[in-house]
C-alpha cells in the first residue's frame, strides 16, 4: 500500500485529501502511478494533476515522474509553495 496526499488548491479541486492505494505489481514509476490514478478517477483529475506547476514529493523529498515507487511510500501532490 502507498499513501497519497493532496494539499491546498489541489486538495480542494479534487475534493479529497488522502488516499490509501495498493501499488501495482512490478516496478512502478511515479509517472506511471499518476496515469493509473487518473484512469481510475473523474476526468477533471487530469487537468489538476497534469498541470505544469504541480510539485510531487515522495517520503517528504521533491521528486520527478521518473522516481521509482516502493511499497509503503508516502506520495504527495501540491501547488507551488507560498509560505514565509
Amino acid at each position: 500500500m502507498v499513501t497519497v496526499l493532496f494539499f491546498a488548491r489541489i486538495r480542494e479541486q479534487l475534493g479529497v485529501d488522502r488516499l490509501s492505494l495498493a501499488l501495482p505489481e512490478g516496478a512502478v514509476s511515479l509517472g506511471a502511478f499518476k496515469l493509473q490514478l487518473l484512469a481510475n478517477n473523474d476526468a477533471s483529475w487530469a487537468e489538476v494533476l497534469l498541470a505544469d506547476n504541480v510539485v510531487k514529493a515522495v517520503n517528504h523529498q521533491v521528486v520527478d515522474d521518473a522516481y521509482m515507487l516502493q511499497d509503503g511510500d508516502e506520495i504527495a501532490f501540491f501547488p507551488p509553495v507560498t509560505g514565509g
Partner: protein
Amino acid sequence: MYALVSVQTQDFDVGAELAALREQSRQIGAVASFVGVVRDINEGQQVTSMELEHYPGMTESSISAIIEQASQRWQLLGARVIHRVGLLQATDQIVLVAVSSMHRGEAFSACEFIMDYLKARAPFWKKEQTPDGERWVDARCTDQSAAERWSEADH
C-alpha cells in the same frame, strides 16, 4: 550546532526566542533575525485574514534541511525557526528566522539564505480572505529567483 524548528498555531515572543537562542552558546557575538508579518493589502486587495496550510512532517524536515545547508555554508552557532499555521489576522507575525554566530556577516547571510529557501521550498500554502471572498495566494517568481541566486553565487 543548535537548531530548533517549530510549526505552530500560537504566536511567538521574539525577545524571548532571541534570549533563548543566545543562551545556547557563550561564543555568540551576533544574532540576526527576520520576522514576517501578514500584510493588510496584497496585490491591491484588502486582506482581512489568512489561512496557512502545511504538510506536517515534510515542513519540519525541509526547514531542518535548509538550516543544515546554511550551516555547511557559514560558521553558525545556532538557528531558531518558527512558522505559524492556521488562521492569522492582518498584522499578525507569521514567521521567525533567527541565526547566531561569532560575527555578524555569517548571521546576516545565513538568516537571509534560510528565509529565501523557506519561501521557495518549505510546503506552506496561504489562502487569503478578502472582502470579495477567499483566494489561494499564487507563488511568486521573485521568491524562486531569491533562492536561486544563492546557488548562482557558488559559480
